[in-house]
């Protein structure tokens, strides 16, 4: 499959009174056309910041300090605001947390759906309204709801409207930042299935962000694990279900109860994520890592690419205990 989005060595910093906060540090990954790529990690690990960096929604003082982002081969970081505005929604759209605040409370659903269309396409108001009706049908909402205000809809319906809105211009990439977090499990299930169904029909790619690893295992093709602003592991879903490689990913998996199999005591990960102004030397996970070695405290682990994905951990570096588990083939992966 062709790469839709390529991110190379992306760094996002923001200035704070205590110094530079490295919210995202040297993150590289790709998303293929039609792929669902998941980013997972604890709160504050930089997953949303990465997404906002891609969609240029960072609020000052946060800013991209280095790296490149290409979409369909076009470099995004060099674009002017006006040039980027043309890409917005027609190529990259976004679905935010399903809390009450995704839709403007004083504007009717119809106007909020069509203003995105009219901002990018020369279309008569009537055509836009017809398109809005079609969009609502896609997410199984009665088109009469166009005349409603957001508060007249349930939380699940509102999130469906936001998803319909994201589809309005048939974008290549939809960024979904915890789209189901504030919904109850049943509604969440319905929304996730709707997303998967639409993704199959339209073939857009999804950057799916959540801290819910089991949910991610259910829907994503590949999963990137972020810790303290760094991408520590990228793995295919099947490989992750079989065996997580990074000790942090293992810890995350052990923090959730298994759906099948024997009951086991949940372990969790001891300690707290590090301060991003003064991250620890070496591997940023070493203070919490059960396998921490001397070199983990001294040297930042390299990001190794093999045919399973990316792994940044000293256990897998040359001379590490699990070096032989690295499966590098000539074709390489990226």
């Amino acid at each position, binding site marked *: 499959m062709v790469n839709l989005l390529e991110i190379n060595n992306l760094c996002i910093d923001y200035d704070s009174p205590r110094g530079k906060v490295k919210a995202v540090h040297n993150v590289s990954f790709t998303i293929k056309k039609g792929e669902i790529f998941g980013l997972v990690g604890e709160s504050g690990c930089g997953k949303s910041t990465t997404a906002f960096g891609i*969609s240029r*929604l960072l609020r000052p003082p946060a800013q991209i300090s280095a790296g490149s982002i290409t979409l369909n081969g076009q470099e995004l970081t060099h674009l002017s605001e006006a040039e980027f*505005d*043309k*890409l*917005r*929604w*027609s190529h*990259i*759209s*976004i679905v*935010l*947390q399903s*809390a009450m*605040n*995704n*839709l*403007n*409370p*004083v*504007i009717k659903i119809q106007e909020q759906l069509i*203003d*995105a269309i009219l*901002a*990018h396409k020369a279309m008569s108001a009537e055509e836009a309204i017809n398109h809005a009706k079609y969009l609502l049908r896609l997410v199984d909402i009665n088109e009469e709801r166009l005349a409603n*205000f957001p*508060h*007249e809809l349930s939380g699940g319906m509102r999130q469906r409207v*936001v998803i319909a*809105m994201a589809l309005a211009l048939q974008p290549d990439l939809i960024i979904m930042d915890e789209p189901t977090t504030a919904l109850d499990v049943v509604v969440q299930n319905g929304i996730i299935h709707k997303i998967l169904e639409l993704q199959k029909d339209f073939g857009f790619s999804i950057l799916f962000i959540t801290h819910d690893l089991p949910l991610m295992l259910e829907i994503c093709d590949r999963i990137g694990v972020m810790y303290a602003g760094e991408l520590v592991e990228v793995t295919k879903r099947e490989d992750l279900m079989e065996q997580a490689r990074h000790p942090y990913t293992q810890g995350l998996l052990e923090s959730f109860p298994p759906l099948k199999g024997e009951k086991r005591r949940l372990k969790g990960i001891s300690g707290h994520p590090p301060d991003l102004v003064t991250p620890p030397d070496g591997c940023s996970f070493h203070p919490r890592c059960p396998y921490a070695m001397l070199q983990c405290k001294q040297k930042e682990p390299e990001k190794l690419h093999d045919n399973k994905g990316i792994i940044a951990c000293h256990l897998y570096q040359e001379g590490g205990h699990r070096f032989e588990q690295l499966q590098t083939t000539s074709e390489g992966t990226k």
Partner: protein
Amino acid sequence: MGLNAGYILKRVGFALVTLYVAITVNFLLPRLMGGDIADTIASEMALGSPEVAAALREQFGLDNTNLFYQYKQYLVQLFQGNMGVSYVNYPAPVTEVMLSALPWTLGTVLIATILSYGIGWMIGIKGAWKSGSLFDNISLFVSFFLNSVPYFWIGIIMIMIFSFHLDLFPLGKAIPHDFDSLSFMGKITTIIHHAALPVISMIIASLAGHILVLRNNLIRVLSEDYMLLAKAKGLSNRRRKYTYGARNALLPSFTGLMITLGHVIGGALTMEIVFSYPGVGLVTFNAILNHDFPLIQGAFLFIAISVIIANLIADLMYPIIDPRVALQ
């Protein structure tokens, strides 16, 4: 959805009940003060003559001491637009005194209120949209300064500079002595000339609060998810700023505007004193100083009615501005 019949009926009904209560309280209050107004007036102007006192009592409708009879008479006369005769401006009826002061008050206080909110909102929106900018910092600094300066001081300083030293504006009053001899355009010009300083001083004194409230509300609104989504949608700056942002931030300020409008009829006493301006505030103030009870009662009633009407208008307009209200 906006307005629905049930909501309108409920609001209008509530306003009518409030109005009735206000009228009744206005009837009872002077009677609770005790003493006999007729005696007081007679002692002041007729050496306490019992005949004069009796005549006054009859004129005031106090000869029948039955409270319910008086209440009935009061309501009947009120509905005929008769609020009694002003004592200080004898024999001018209260209605006439109030109506002659009303245009001056509306012309200055109403215009100043609307302009002050409008200008304050525009500055607040501009500041919040680029918070931390030079414009924002200057407007914040000036706002905090103005907010801590009493109105009378601003008025006096303006008279001193613009009227006394620079001689650009009159020292006070609403019209010059030779008003009647002026042409129509001349009358308009001189009215505006006289009203300029009062209006500008009132705007300056009240501007700061409107700037600060709107700025803070808009900054809060700008951090909402729907603003981020509007940006991600690639909507124009203008649309995000006004339709998505300011529209939401205005809701609390709109309530403030309607409350202030209700009080406009009460006049701006300090302004009217500083500029010797013949508005409702000064009329009420003089009525109180001179124990002119019919006029006090009339003024209070005017104020009560205008506050109730302004609140009713606000209630009826609010569902259009904020669709979440009508359903509650």
